């Protein structure tokens, strides 16, 4: 906690590579010459570890960068060309695999139905999650939550009117409404400390599978391209709409396991905050955007669908591993804390 509180943390180390693409991008960032050629990118699985990590490396240059990597690499034309070549198969696979709705309203309405006998990750964690499950979950989610709301801030200059005002208001809340200790990314770092995880930015990328990286790469892809502003808004609406009930289950899981006050608080806060955010995003951001730019209706729907699709892939991986009693991570967590942290009475 102290480490995070002391201003800007150091840049993360480059994570270990997972194949030829991620190896050559990482090598290029370390001043080696060769970048992957387009044929190699075409051969890679769009949702696989190698392509997703290579994409993650390219995107992180726009956030916090990496230790020992020149900040100017962010605008290196060769690297941007490779990033575009990595994005193409990812986006194409999403367009063919994930698209289910033509209209934003239809896609979002479907998310409002809460199954009584739900069986997602948050249901599992609420009902039978043990400490090690919650630690694995938090470690993988930290790839996003330690930069919570950042990928979405890029859409602000691309919006106008109600959409812009609504988006800025929600982002203001995500960024702590003027209080550093309430910034959601900081609250997540505190949650990690409660779970005896390392809250350093980017620390658990090495352990996160392709499915966990893909969920975050999606946000960066949508956030960095003005052409995908509709999809970014749809993605954000999907996250805010599904978050509140899921957060309630996670708060219960944290409480039951005795994870600690900050761990519970992060999810309690999201129950209430996202019940509000959902309303603002739907009424002001989505409706406002489509009033200004009705031609983006299909893109908003695609953003919702792509989010659900990648979240489901992540859920499948986590639940399959956990039901088999195995770690869902590429490398199981090194530190083994006490089996119970702060037992609740």
């Amino acid at each position: 906690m102290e480490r995070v509180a002391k201003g800007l943390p150091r840049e993360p180390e480059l994570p270990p590579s997972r194949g030829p693409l991620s190896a050559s991008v990482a090598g290029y960032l370390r001043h080696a010459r060769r970048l992957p050629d387009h044929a190699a990118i075409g051969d890679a699985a769009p949702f696989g570890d190698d392509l997703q990590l290579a994409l993650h490396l390219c995107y992180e240059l726009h956030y916090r960068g990496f230790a020992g990597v020149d900040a100017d690499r962010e605008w290196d034309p060769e690297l941007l060309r490779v990033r575009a070549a990595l994005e193409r198969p990812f986006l194409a696979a999403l367009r063919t695999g994930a698209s289910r709705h033509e209209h934003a309203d239809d896609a979002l309405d479907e998310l409002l139905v809460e199954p009584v006998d739900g069986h997602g990750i948050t249901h599992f964690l609420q009902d039978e999650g043990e400490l090690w499950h919650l630690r694995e979950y938090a470690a993988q989610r930290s790839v996003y939550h330690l930069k919570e709301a950042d990928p979405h801030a890029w859409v602000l200059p691309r919006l106008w009117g109600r959409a812009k005002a609504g988006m800025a208001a929600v982002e203001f809340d995500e960024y702590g409404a003027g209080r550093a200790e309430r910034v959601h990314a900081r609250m997540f770092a505190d949650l990690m400390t409660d779970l005896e995880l390392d809250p350093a930015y980017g620390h658990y990328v090495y352990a996160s599978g392709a499915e966990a990286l893909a969920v975050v790469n999606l946000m960066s892809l949508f956030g960095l391209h003005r052409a995908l502003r509709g999809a970014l808004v749809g993605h954000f609406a999907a996250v805010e709409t599904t978050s509140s009930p899921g957060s309630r289950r996670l708060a219960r899981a944290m409480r039951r396991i005795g994870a600690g006050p900050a761990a519970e608080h992060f999810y309690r806060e999201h129950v209430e905050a996202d019940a509000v955010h959902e309303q603002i995003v739907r009424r002001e951001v989505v409706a406002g955007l489509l009033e200004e730019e009705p031609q983006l209706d299909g893109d908003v729907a695609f953003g919702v669908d792509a989010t659900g699709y990648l979240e489901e892939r992540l859920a499948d991986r986590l639940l399959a591993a956990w039901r088999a009693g195995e770690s869902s991570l590429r490398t199981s967590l090194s530190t083994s804390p006490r089996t119970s942290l702060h037992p609740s009475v």
Partner: protein
Amino acid sequence: MSTVPGERPRRITAPREGPLLVEGPVEVVLEDGTTVSSERFCVALCTCRRSRAYPWCDTSHRQHPERGRPD
């Protein structure tokens, strides 16, 4: 986000379904006399009385079908 009193009326959005949206900060006096407050720029007040975080909305107004969501 807070306004100087009297500068302009506080906006409340009252949809037919779902919570009342009230510009924050707000203080809510509950039936038993206790007061709860929120500094959020906007709060969602539960109107269906099913919220487990009452008076704040926790999305419990959503419909629950008999079966799970079809995949």
